[in-house]
């Protein structure tokens, strides 16, 4: 045993020192590309890995953030807004019944694999989704297809929704006609979804050879969706690599893009799953931007000189009431009392970033269908007490569930928000029994099953249609709410069937008024989620729908 003779110790120490210096040198060398030194690579951090490189198989924002740069849908939202504009279709129209949708397609568009974009390609996509079989029919795989277009050519699950998609016809090279069985509130908004973005027909043929499987208690996604190479869209970037070990998706500028070319050559999405981790990576210069900035960090980052644009509100945060869980909630006065007891403005001032708004109904004021005439329930503790007395519920005791270990764009600090509301309710004489639960799946399962009398949840819109908000909750009986009120359900469903856009907006306003008369829960606030960029970055226009186009990014 001679290794610890002083010479050996010195040798080891020297080796460690050399190693440290060498790795230090490596880092300095790496930083050129990493930190925007060559201005050729933009690195953006999200909170989670994408689930698939095929957006049709996804329903989560992290996947769509990546795929949106590579795939385009027939319709898109205007840059930085929520208005529908042409995407791969320059113009679109529907028949008066809202059943036949005609799309005049953009010319000169190419897919990343060299295939030409045309009406046949559009129909190949819609027919591909409509003919999905087996595990592809699970709503875990094809959630958005089912939400927008219903079921499939041959539904394999009797509980699957009735198909609403009827056919797609290539009328000519540049005109595609999509027919549906019934008019739907989800159209035309649904045509803009990433999940219905158009893929190359050549790639689709490869996709069709591979199955998704439900094996071993989970769904296995097809191989093509898990590695770059097969998927091909028309977007300003093409996906070139998915390094799962390094949690990194790399995209490269598509030089044959039909529109304005991307300003930065390489775009890299990396995953850093904690808020603090993303902020520190930006401050350390390891990334050029990140999403889901904690409201508490916004001011600090701005002071330090970072770009922290705030998106317009397009979400809603609410306190849900489950009437079946606590019979007192069946009484209108009790629901009104709870609404009066909560200080929404206080929550907005203390918990939300600048630009947050107190809510009066179950949609933000940026959604078409928002009504100025809904019944409001201003903060009034005495009124709440009176209403409780009137209902004979002065000693109301109620369970209130809240989630832990989570932040959502509409709910940046769940525990603090809960504590404030609990204090407000207690001032009105309500005894609150708090129940903290882990967000996924405990909390989500409990709220969905109607196990919490009061709970906090929210929603970020997919597209600008009222049904995307109120239709989610009040189109029919739902365990989360535990009530059955025909008037409320009819008002929402009637609005969804109006085909004239202006008429539909008016109908949504009426539905909002009906809902707030019934007051099934308390809409609390709408929060503007912030996104942060390095000091040397010209950010893209931020989108209320979190649909940023990173082709707009450049370095200063």
């Amino acid at each position, binding site marked *: *045993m*001679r290794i*610890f*003779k*002083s010479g050996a110790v010195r040798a*080891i120490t020297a080796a460690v020192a050399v*190693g*440290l210096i*060498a*790795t*230090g*040198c*490596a*880092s300095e060398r*790496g930083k050129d590309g990493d930190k925007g030194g060559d201005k050729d*690579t933009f690195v953006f951090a999200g909170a989670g*890995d994408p689930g698939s490189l095929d957006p049709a198989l996804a329903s989560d924002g992290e996947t769509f953030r990546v795929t949106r740069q590579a795939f385009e849908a027939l319709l898109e939202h205007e840059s930085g807004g929520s208005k529908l504009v042409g995407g791969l279709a320059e113009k679109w129209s529907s028949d008066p019944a809202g059943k036949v949708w005609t799309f005049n397609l953009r010319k000169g568009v190419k897919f990343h694999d060299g295939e030409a974009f045309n009406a046949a390609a559009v129909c190949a996509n819609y027919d591909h989704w409509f003919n999905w079989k087996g595990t592809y029919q*699970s*709503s*875990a795989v094809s*959630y958005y297809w089912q939400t927008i277009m219903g079921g499939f050519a041959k539904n394999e*699950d009797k*509980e699957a929704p009735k198909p609403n998609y009827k056919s797609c016809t290539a009328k000519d090279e540049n005109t595609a006609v999509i027919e549906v069985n019934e008019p739907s509130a989800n159209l035309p908004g649904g045509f803009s979804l990433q999940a219905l973005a158009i893929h190359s027909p050549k790639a689709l043929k490869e996709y069709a050879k591979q199955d998704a499987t*439900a094996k*071993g*208690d*989970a*769904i*296995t*996604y097809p191989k093509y969706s*898990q590695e770059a190479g097969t998927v091909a869209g028309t977007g300003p970037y093409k996906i070139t*690599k998915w390094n*799962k*070990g*390094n*949690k*990194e998706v790399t995209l490269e500028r598509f030089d044959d893009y039909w529109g304005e070319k991307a300003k930065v050559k*390489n775009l*890299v999405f*990396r995953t850093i*799953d*904690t808020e603090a*981790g993303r902020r*520190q*990576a930006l401050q*350390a210069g*390891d*990334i050029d931007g990140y999403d889901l900035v904690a409201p508490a960090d916004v001011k600090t980052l701005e002071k330090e000189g970072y770009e922290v644009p705030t998106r317009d509100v397009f979400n809603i945060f609410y306190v849900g009431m489950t009437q079946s869980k606590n019979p007192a909630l069946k009484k209108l006065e009790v629901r009104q009392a709870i609404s009066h007891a909560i200080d929404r403005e206080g929550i907005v001032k203390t918990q939300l970033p600048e630009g947050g708004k107190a809510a009066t109904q179950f949609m933000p004021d940026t959604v078409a269908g928002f009504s100025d005439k809904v019944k409001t329930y201003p903060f009034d503790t005495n009124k709440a007490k009176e209403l409780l007395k009137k209902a004979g519920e002065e000693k109301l005791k109620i369970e209130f569930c809240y989630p832990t*270990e989570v932040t*959502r764009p509409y709910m940046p600090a769940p525990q603090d928000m809960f504590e404030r509301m609990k204090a407000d309710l207690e001032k009105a004489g309500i005894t609150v029994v708090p129940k903290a639960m*882990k967000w*996924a*799946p*405990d909390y*989500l*399962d*409990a709220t*969905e099953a109607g196990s919490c009398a009061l709970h906090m*949840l929210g929603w970020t819109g997919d597209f600008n249609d009222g049904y995307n908000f109120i239709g989610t909750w009040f189109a029919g009986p739902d*365990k989360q709410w535990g009530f059955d009120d025909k008037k409320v359900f009819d008002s929402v469903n009637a609005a969804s069937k109006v085909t004239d856009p202006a008429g539909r907006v008016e109908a949504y306003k009426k539905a909002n008024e009906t809902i707030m008369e019934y007051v099934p829960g308390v809409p609390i606030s709408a929060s503007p989620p912030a996104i942060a960029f390095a000091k040397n970055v010209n950010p893209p226009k931020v989108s209320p729908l979190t649909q940023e186009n990173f082709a707009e990014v450049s370095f200063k």
Partner: protein
Amino acid sequence: MLRLVVRRLLQLIPTLLGLSVLLFLWLNRLPGGPASAILGERATEAEVARINRALGLDQPVYVQYWRFLKRIFELDLGTSTQTGQPVWDEFATRFPATVELSIVAILIAIVVGIPMGYLAAKRRGGWLDVGAVSGSLIGICIPVFFLALILKGIFAVQLQMFPSYGRLDTGMDATDITGFAVLDGLLTGELDASLDAMHHLILPAIALSSIPLAVIVRMTRASVLEVLGEDYVRTAESKGLDKRVVRGRHVLRNALLPVVTAVGLLTGSLLSGAVLTESVFSFNGIGNFIRTSIDARDYPVLVGFILFIAMVYVLINLLVDLAYSLIDPRVRVH
């Protein structure tokens, strides 16, 4: 000897079977399931039911267990509900990262800890001794994640000497052969990738090494002090033997025996520290993956991981027993 090996391997079967029953029952008692983890706020009652039906989670527990057992016998750990990829593939991607991190952490602990413990003992009562003892006390007391946060805050965010997250720099197009980033760089001649991986390992490895380092310092110090008082050391010194020979051949060699045993045990326990360290540095290792799997109720990953670790522990115990019987015939089992 062969009988011992066969007997111990046969004992593995009931051990793992019993563990699988316990695991399965435990997981089935947990509230929540993968459906709402997949769909989030969008999960409705009907959709959860449909997903559960597709995954067979609506079937009786014994049917699910039998299916689970059949898969295990086929060495199929199932598919991760988070990523939709086979659990083996997920482990194969992440285990090398954690092993690499653990090796570097334990190397730091050994290379720094043993000389420091030895010098502290040699200069008992001196400033080095006081520093080593109090430093190791802090090392044991300070939570690993806290140390990780401090190191990251100072050396990555403020001084920008080290990367703040990940295993490799963005765009480092390294060839992946074994999954061990440092080793792969050496094998393929991509030395920049190797150095880059090492650069990413340093801060998490220092944080992770804090407890083993503290334990090694204290154990070495105590052990050396004990050996220094032994008769044979006094004899060697009084014979006029060169001090370096006494130190290396007589003191350290004997003092290191308990330390070496401890190093083995500490290496095994590094995994718990890795969960927190990897989380702070967004290091894509098995520790971070298990943390997210617990959040997402990713049953296949959790079951696979626990069974795998149990198997490793049982096998290590077997190897230890075999090693004992080889080293010391008195403990040989007949």
